[in-house]
């Protein structure tokens, strides 16, 4: 059977592979090469060694956006996961209206990042105006908080669905046995539910961390990096380096930043998966 399938590779693999080569592999390799070049368009690239990387690593804006991204990702991941788990616990108690609540909390995930950004831009700036405070794109800490609220609003529902699925897959016998042994609700949560939820926690932590690092649309629409690049995250900083500046050197800098960003995201994904996989309970 394997031989028969193997013969048909042009039918089964070729369409995806060709698109994958055009849409991913070729641009990826070319991008890797161009990060060592000075260029405006792809055809006129001249090799200039590590200069782009040296510039990227010493640019204040880039380093600031790195710090901002790390801070935002850590804070937002913690908030989203704790809130999502709390709501998932509440929704698995078999109270009335569970389905309705679940649907409502999940709804923001279906709306695109740009639209979400504008919705919250209008709402939060109105709150700030009524309180007599500076707007989000004039005062960076408010921009940070606004982005945090927006991401919580969007992602809690998604993570909640994953936690609910995780909670429902815990065998009822475990909980019953714990209850018969006289465990309190708190003990059941910490000693039975949480260890059995580890796979879900791994997935959610991984998703929130990478979503935080890769965040672009919401950042662009909510504050656009204002004031003075202070709320600019890595993805937006790279975009601005490419398309927001003129001059022959900027595209190369942008590509070098993009490679650094890419390495960072891959490294986080690997570390994160390894760290939480080892804590999972063997069932």
């Amino acid at each position, binding site marked *: 059977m394997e031989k028969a399938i193997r013969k048909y590779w042009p039918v089964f693999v070729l369409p995806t592979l060709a698109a994958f080569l055009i849409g991913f592999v070729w641009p990826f390799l070319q991008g890797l090469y161009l990060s060592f070049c000075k260029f405006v368009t792809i055809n006129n690239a001249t090799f200039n060694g590590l200069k782009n990387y040296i510039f990227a690593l010493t640019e204040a804006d880039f380093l600031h956006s790195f710090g901002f991204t790390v801070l935002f990702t850590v804070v937002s991941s913690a908030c989203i996961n704790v809130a999502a788990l709390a709501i998932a616990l*509440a929704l698995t108690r078999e109270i009335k209206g569970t389905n309705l609540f679940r649907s409502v909390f*999940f709804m923001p995930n279906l709306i695109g990042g740009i639209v979400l950004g504008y919705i919250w831009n209008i709402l939060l700036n109105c709150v700030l105006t009524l309180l007599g405070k500076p707007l989000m794109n004039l005062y960076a800490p408010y921009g940070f908080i606004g982005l945090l609220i927006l991401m919580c609003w969007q992602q809690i529902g998604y993570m909640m669905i994953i936690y609910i699925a995780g909670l429902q897959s815990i065998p009822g016998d475990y909980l019953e046995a714990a209850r018969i042994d006289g465990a309190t609700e708190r003990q059941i949560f910490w000693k039975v539910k949480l260890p059995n939820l580890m796979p879900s926690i791994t997935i959610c932590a991984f998703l929130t961390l990478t979503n935080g690092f890769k965040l672009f649309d919401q950042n662009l629409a909510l504050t656009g990096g204002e004031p003075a690049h202070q709320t600019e995250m890595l993805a937006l900083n790279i975009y601005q380096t490419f398309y927001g500046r003129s001059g022959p050197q900027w595209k190369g800098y942008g590509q070098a930043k993009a490679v650094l960003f890419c390495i960072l995201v891959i490294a986080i994904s690997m570390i994160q998966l390894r760290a939480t996989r080892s804590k999972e309970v063997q069932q």
Partner: protein
Amino acid sequence: MTKRHQLKDRITTVVLALLSVAWVYPVFMILFNSLKKESAISTGTAFELPTAESFAGFANYADAIQSKGFLSAFWYTLVITVTSLVLILICCSMCAWFITRVNAWYSKALYFLFVFSMVVPFQMLMFTLSSTADRIGSSATVGNLAGKLGISVSKAAADISLLPLNTPYGICIVYLGFGAGLAVFMFCGFMKSIPLEVEEAAMIDGCGPIRTFFLVVLPILKPTLISVGILETMWLWNDYLLPYLVLDRTKGYMTISILIQYFRGSYGRVEMGPMMASIMLNIIPIIIVYLLCQKHIIKGVAAGAVKG
């Protein structure tokens, strides 16, 4: 159930109800603001419901639809989403079947590459991808090919692109390449659990690989097809940066997400009324689809996460 338990359940219900009101409020706020007159919308009054004086009816909606080509943007978004989705579902499930059933170094290498592509951020490929798409789109024309072959063609035919990656029809190929990672990964995860015997039986009964795949494997895959379809649709419909960079906007190609960005003029002037109307026009179809098949959507997300 004890009294204390009941009280606790009631408090939880009330808290959750309040939270859900807060959850839908932003969308509701956009809805009533989109019905206000342009002059009545400002950052300080976004919480006020429209009054008889500021009520504008559907003027903003008419404006949003007419002024910047909403209908064509809507059509292009639909074309891109549906075509890419069909391509991704069919091509990637076929590819995943090949990878799981053929035990060779290259299928392992392919699998690794696809998984790797899921992690790589779009910014890494952003510039090269958009300029490659542009170059292929404008240079791989009938005219150039005919010139190489020494055939002469008419001017109109010469301008037709063979691989128009920078149009809403060709961009689907880019999406197939870029969306393949997640799809192949999820399909492979599921296919490992399909018993081989079923397929072998089909083959022994005289089915070729193609018939086996479409008549036997694909029907078994249905739940995974739905999950992958939902995850990819959520991404395709809302994607902003890829179409923004790849589509040739000089020819008027854009998606709804790009259009909304256009209402924020270049000098800080925002056409708030039409912008909110276009936001609503973007959200309404999403909410209708959600109401119709929310069970599948929520199940699909949960299933996708377990495999992820």
